[in-house]
Structures are given as C-alpha cells and as structure tokens.
C-alpha cells in the first residue's frame, strides 16, 4: 500500500510536468488557432538562457524574471510577427509546417550555440526534500506541482472572467466574427503567442532545474511531446481537462512502468517510453469526427502544371541516363566502404522515394504525415529479417506490410481534422522510434540488412545498388505522376480543395484518405528497404523521428506539389546531412519562413515558373458566355451521360 502511495505521488508530479507544458500548448492554440509544435523548444531556449545568466553570476531569481518576463514575451512577439501573421486563419497544413520549422530553427540554433548538452546541472530554485505520505519529494517537485495547478486555475479564470480572455478564446472559434466585433485578430494572436511563450519559458526553466541530469537540447525540446496527449485530452481548448489529462497520463506512466512492465519480462518491448504516445493515439480515436462544413473558402493557389504521360516518360529516361553517368564514378565491385559521394547518391534516391510519398500525401491530398521515417524503419527491418535478409520477398513485404500498417493507422483517424491526423502520425512515429526500434530484436544499434539478390541479377557492387535505387526512384516518380493524372489523383486534389463538395458529389472522403495514406506508407516502406540494402547495416538512429520531421520540411520548402521538389529536397537533405549535420534543421527552418510568401515552395515561385513553358492551349478562352449553347444540355443528358454512368 505504501508502495502504491509512493507511485501515486510520483505519478502526480510527473503529471504536473506534463500539465505545465500541455496548458501552454492549449493557450497558444485557443488564442491563435495554431498548434505550436515548437512549444518545448521555446522552453529549451529559455532554459539555456537561464543557464547562461546563472553561470555569469546573475542571481537565480533575477535570471528567472529576465528570462520569463522579458525574454520570452519578446520571443513571442517576434514569432508572431515573423512567422504567424501571414498565416492567420489558415487551417491547412502551412501552420503545422511553420511551427515545425520553428522547432527545427530553435533546435538548430541551440545545437550550434550550446551543443547537444551541457555537462553541469542547474541548482533548483529551492532546495531541500519533504516527506509526503511517507514519500520523499524534493521542494522543486512541490514547486512544479504547485505551478501546474496555479497555472491551470489562473488560465481558467482568465478565459472565463475577463473580456480579454473571452476575446482570446473567440479567435479560434471564429476569426471572422471576432473581426466584426471590433477586436483585432492580430493583436489577439500576438497576445496568445506572448502568453504561450511565457508559459513555455516557465516550464522550461522549472523542468531544467528539476532534471538532475545535464541540460539536453533534444530532451528539453521534445519533453512537450508527452504534453500533446494531455492537451488533446482537453480537446486543445479546455484548461481544466488538460490539467486532468496531464495528471492521468503521469499516473498511467508511473503505474505502468512499476506494475505492468516487469510482468512483460524480457519479451515485451520497453513500452513505458512510448506510453504517452499510445495514450495520445487512444485519445484521438475517442474524439468525435470532424463535421463536414461548407466553408466557402476558395484556394487561390495556382497549382503547378501536371506533366503529361509522354513528358514524364522522357524526363524519366533522361534522369536515369544521368544516374547511369553518375554511377560510373562509383566502384563497380567493392561492397561496403562506399565513398561519401556514393552514400550521398544512395541517400538521395532513398529519401527521394520518401519525398514522393509526401508529394502524394501533402501535395495532392493535403494530409500531413510525420511518420514516413517510421515506415522506412519498418521497411528496413523487414528487408533485414525476412528470408535471411536481402531477399526480393523482403522488398515486397516491406511495401505490403507498411501499406497495411498505414491503412490501420489511418482508418480510425482520417475522420479527424488535419491537425489531429498529423498528431496521430506523430504519435505513431514517436512510439516506433522510442518504443520499438531501439529493441535489439528490431533495429537496436545496428541490424544487418544484407545486399539484395534479384533472380538473374547480382547487386553486389555499389554501382549496381545505386542503379537499383535510381530505378526504383524513377518508377515511383512515374507512379506518382500517373496517379496524379488518373481519376484517383483528381479526387485527391478535389478532396483537398473542398471536403464538403467532395461528399456532395458522392465520394467517400474517408476511403480516399485511407487509400492514399496506405500507398504513401508502402512507398516509404520501399524506400526504407532500399535504404537498408544500400547501407548494409541500419540502426534506430537512421530513422530518427526528428530527422523525419525535418525532411518533411525540406520537401515543403522545395515544393511539395511536384516530383522535382521531392527530388531536390532529397538531394539537398542528403548533401547537407553529410556536410553539416547541425545546419540541416537551420536550413529547413529558414526555408519554412519563406512559405508564407511562396506557398508552392522554391520551385513554385513565380519568377521560376515563368521560365517553364506553358502547355499550348492552356489559355484558350471564349470571349463571352455563350448563353445560346445552354440548349445542348438536355440532349447531353439523354445521350452520352447515361451511357457513361
């Protein structure tokens, strides 16, 4: 019984940690309509700032005031002005991308300035330990539990009792309504970002003080990830529910780790790390479906021209010839010990296929997936394990199994709003990366994948392997373009443009979304299998969730609606990871700032697209509406439509 009490106290303290970050998320979301993936990163920067001040002999209390009440609000104002203002009211994928970009900028900056971690620990604000119900807790723990509760109460009061708070809440409910009531949505959104940053900074500093280990960039930035679950539990709106969700989650993690995990023995994977994400997935499944609504908002985006069948065939052939030329620089026979150049080439092709899956998903269907790298990992795993590794069967299974898993993930979640769907994919990616891949029976530190052997063909040399990858990329690109030109492709674009109209022409949005997600997952699985076979040996770190997120940003920055965007993203990503690892996130983040101005990405920018010739006849138009031709309709109905239907 005393043990149970101890676990309960520990669970409540952990839950308070979750609750602090989760309530901050809720504040930004309710006031600006944007889910801030970078919430934890803001806290991380604040913690480093605090650390710098304290090591320069600024008194701890003063340092906290400076960071939380001066630095954080300033950062909030800058974020709102630089990144968010152009996206106000945008409910599509761009706000998600921009906060993910902010996450990678902040992490990139911290990596460059502070490194991956700081050896020394911070002193807690207040020292000493207590005993509560016979359980020893530090004063810092009490401060955190108290702060979590105080923040929850204060926000609840603010949102429901003051005019400012009520107006703040209105932003997300109906920006147009707010505008007609005289309040400025921009001012409200700025207030929201300031408030959110202050809470993030407070959480960051308190947690950094509590962590008795070193300050770690990734740990701090991604700590908030567990808070996602609590925030979604509160439907991203209710502060009290979010607080409750945090506590429940904290208890669940501690109870599970203490009671259930030991019984799983050595057989079960270490699920406690993945538990918050499993919780998040569960909460998402329980959410009510989004209601179809006619919003009457027309996209004004000019979509990139779709290459015709012959054009794409010719381009594919030319591309493959260039690939053959590149392959001549590679050694023909030696396996392993590939040159840097060879590694970059291989990675470009494998990431390129992942990029293509994102073109299909984000570019055509408007669905954000943050778990393509997890599918890659599964693909590589199957490639390494099935039939001793390197078999054709493994390659096929990588595609089929990933597509099936994709469908299983999508089935319960496609009915949700886009943001929730993105969160579900994030939850899956995190569960795979932290809970499943590290197991030595899955990927662990390194899994031997083995060279692929196709009937009648030997892929022993680097050159052959690269050509295999290049061939797979070219075929995938042709497939994606063929899909875009097909009836299915038209439906994907139609669904993205107007879900309400999509339903009223008799099409099932849920089915379409599940199908496209499964196809994209299969492509990512293929990419992973090929990546594995090219690398020879892969580990968990190859499929880092954070790297996966940055890659999504690369594709969006270059142009997620085109195949060439996917290729350029893969190329620059492969080169940059090889040359300057810390710069990858910075590049992605800096590029994302652009998408407020260039929604179609770099290669969709107008000055560039003017260089591309237009299809002849695309601009043909008649001078006026020919009212007399209305006469033709009845005949049309009686004749051909029936025949076609």
């Amino acid at each position, binding site marked *: 019984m005393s043990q149970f009490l101890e676990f309960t106290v520990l669970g409540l303290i952990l839950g308070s940690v979750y609750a602090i970050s989760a309530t901050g998320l809720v504040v930004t979301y309710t006031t600006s309509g944007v889910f801030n993936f970078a919430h934890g990163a803001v806290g991380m920067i604040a913690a480093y700032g605090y650390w710098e001040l304290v090591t320069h002999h600024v008194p701890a209390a003063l340092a906290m005031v400076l960071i939380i009440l001066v630095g954080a609000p300033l950062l909030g104002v800058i974020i709102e002005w630089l990144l968010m203002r152009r996206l106000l009211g945008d409910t599509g994928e761009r706000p998600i991308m921009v906060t993910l970009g902010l996450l990678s900028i902040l992490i990139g900056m911290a990596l460059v300035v502070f490194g991956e971690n700081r050896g020394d620990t911070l002193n807690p604000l207040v020292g000493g330990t207590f005993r509560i119900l016979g359980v020893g807790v530090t004063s810092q723990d009490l401060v955190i539990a108290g702060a979590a509760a105080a923040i929850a109460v204060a926000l609840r009061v603010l949102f429901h009792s003051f005019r400012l708070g009520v107006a703040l809440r209105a932003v997300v409910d109906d920006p147009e309504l707010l505008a007609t009531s005289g309040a400025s949505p921009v001012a409200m959104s700025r207030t929201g970002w300031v408030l959110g940053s202050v809470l993030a900074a407070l959480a960051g500093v308190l947690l950094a003080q509590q962590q008795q280990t070193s300050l770690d960039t990734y740990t701090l930035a991604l700590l908030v990830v567990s808070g996602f679950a609590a925030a979604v539990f509160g439907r991203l709106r209710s502060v009290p529910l979010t607080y409750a969700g945090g506590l429940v989650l904290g208890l669940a993690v501690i109870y599970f780790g203490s009671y259930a995990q030991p019984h799983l023995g050595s057989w079960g994977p270490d699920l406690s790390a993945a538990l918050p994400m499993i919780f998040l997935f569960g909460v998402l499944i329980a959410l009510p479906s989004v209601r179809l609504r006619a919003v009457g908002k027309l996209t*004004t985006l000019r979509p990139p021209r779709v290459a015709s069948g012959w054009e794409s065939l010719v381009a594919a052939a030319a591309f493959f010839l260039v690939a053959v030329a590149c392959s001549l620089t590679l050694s023909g026979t030696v396996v392993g010990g590939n040159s840097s150049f060879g590694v970059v080439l291989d990675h470009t092709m494998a990431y390129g296929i992942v990029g293509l899956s994102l073109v299909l998903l984000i570019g055509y269907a408007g669905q954000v997936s943050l778990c393509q790298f997890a599918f890659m990992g599964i693909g590589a795993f199957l490639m390494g394990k099935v039939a001793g590794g390197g078999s054709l069967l493994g390659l096929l299974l990588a595609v089929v199994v990933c597509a099936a898993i994709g469908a299983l993930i999508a089935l319960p979640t496609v009915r949700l709003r886009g943001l929730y769907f993105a969160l579900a994919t994030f939850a899956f990616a995190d569960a795979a990366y932290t809970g499943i891949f590290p197991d030595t029976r899955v990927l662990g530190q390194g899994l031997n994948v083995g060279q692929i052997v196709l009937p009648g063909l030997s892929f022993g040399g680097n050159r052959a392997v690269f050509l295999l990858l290049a061939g797979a990329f070219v075929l995938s690109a042709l497939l994606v373009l063929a899909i875009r030109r097909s009836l299915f492709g038209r439906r994907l674009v139609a669904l993205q443009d*107007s879900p309400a109209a999509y339903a*009223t022409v008799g099409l099932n949005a849920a089915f379409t979304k599940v199908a496209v997600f499964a196809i994209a997952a299969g492509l990512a699985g293929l990419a992973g299998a090929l990546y594995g076979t090219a690398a020879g040996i892969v580990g968990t770190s190859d499929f880092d969730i954070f790297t996966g997120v940055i890659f999504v940003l690369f594709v969006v920055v270059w142009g997620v609606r085109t195949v060439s965007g996917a290729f350029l993203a893969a190329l620059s990503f492969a080169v940059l990871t090889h040359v300057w690892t810390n710069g990858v996130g910075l590049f992605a983040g800096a590029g994302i700032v652009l998408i407020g101005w260039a929604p179609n990405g770099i290669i969709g920018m107008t000055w560039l697209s003017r260089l591309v010739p237009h299809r002849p006849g695309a601009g043909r138009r*008649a001078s006026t509406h020919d009212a007399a031709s209305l006469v033709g309709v009845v005949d*049309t109905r009686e004749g051909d439509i029936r025949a*076609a239907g």
Partner: protein
Amino acid sequence: MPPADALAPERTGGGGSDPVLEVRGVTVHFGGVSALTDVTLSVDRGSVTGLIGPNGAGKTTLFNVISGLQVPNSGVVVFEGRDLARVRPHRRARLGIARTFQRLELFGSLTAEDNVRVGLESSIRWWQWHRLRASFPWARDEAGDGARATGSRVVGLADRLLAGVGLAGHESEQSSAMPTGSARMVELARALAMQPKLVLLDEPGSGLDEHESEALGSLLQRLAADGMAVLLVEHDMELVMRVCDRVHVLDFGHIIASGTPDEVRADPRVQKAYLGASAGSAPAAGGDV
C-alpha cells in the same frame, strides 16, 4: 421537344403529385438561435420548386440538412420514400441528391473541365482499375474505342456539360480564377454530371447578367421536363416567378407560405416579411430582394 414553358402549367397544383423529397418537421438550433423551426415541405419529381425568404431565413441551413451536412435537432428528411436520418452525405449524393453552394465550393485548383469530370466519374468504383488506364500515355488518343478511351470519352462529356451551362471554351481555366457567375455554372455542371434525381441550387443566379439568368431559367425548366426535381433558392424574383411551379417562403425559420408563384405573391404575410410594415407589392417581378 415542345418549349419548356408550355409544359410548366400541367405540372403545377401539387395535390396528387409525386414527391421525390419530403421534409417533415425539421428544426435546427445554433446555440440560442433557431435557424429552422418545424419546417415541412415537399418537392415533386419533374418540377421546379422555389424556396425564397429574406436573408438569414434559413434557406441554406435547410439545404445543408437535406444534403446531410447539418444534422437537424428534430424532424426527418425522406427521399424517394426512404428516411435519410442515418445516411451520410456522400451516400445521399449517390442516392441522387446533388447540390450547389451559395458560398462557392469548387475544386479550386482543378480546371473547370476536371471539376465536372470528378462529378462524372464519381460513380466509378475503385476496383474498376481499367479506368485508370486512361491516365497512361498510350491509352490517351484513341477516342471512341471502347474501354481504352474512357478518358477522352469523359472529357468529351464534361466539355458538353460545360457548354450546356454556357461555358464552352472555358474548359481549361482554373476554376478558382473564374468570375463568380461562371464558377456557379461550373458547380451546376458538376452537380448535373451526377445525373441526380433532385438538385438543390443555392442562389445560382447571383453573378449572372440578365441574359444569362434567362438562359439559366430555361435550362432549369428543361431539366424538370426531363424528370429531374429542382429545388431553387434564389433572390432574383423574376427568375423564381417565371420558372417555379411551386414556391415555399421561409421567414425566420418558419414556412409562412406555400403555393403557386401567383398565390405566394398575393399572400399578405409574404409581402410583410419582405417589406416589413410598409405597404407594397413585393416580391414584385423584377425586384432583387
């Protein structure tokens, strides 16, 4: 084919008619606001039925209830004798209910032609893989050659439908870049492409000039003559009075009058709803309320 106008009088009168759609006792609240209160009406096969009322009367809300985008607080919608309560929007569309939107819901990044194609192809199921062949280069050019030419066949139909709503020559324009009047006609063509039994039109006439709205009127009458049921929300009273066989009047969520255009025009409650206390003869022909 005889002129549509000549046929119209024979279908009026309601009485022993053949309702394709029946709305019974539908009530919708938004928070404290009642958008619809106990609305009952029916729409006959092969007729144009008007639904008019001042701004905010609940016309669009009723359309949303019929097409399944809005769940009513109470009441039923019956289509061809079948209660639609548990039927999802895309299923209702497949049963034969098509619609257009007051605030445009085009597939904005597609061309006008592709908008209509999506409607035309909505009956193609995913297992009909052979249809996908149309997207490959070698299956493209052979018009009129059975299954291989599905693509060109559908394109041809889409173009004819667009021509039918007066948009010949505009097939490859991006639909979100079109002027409102034309965009409405693209929505109409897309709805007609599904061969609906009932089509709900939410202010199709706004954004059209006089000539075009006249053409729209005769198009609607032709559709009705062909057996389709049309439910028309429109502020252009001349159009409503000219083409409708029956008219229902909504005011603050209540049906305040139903009948032939002439009966409705003469109804004092309707005049009051449109003009408030002041005397007058609204909704007068030609008035744009």
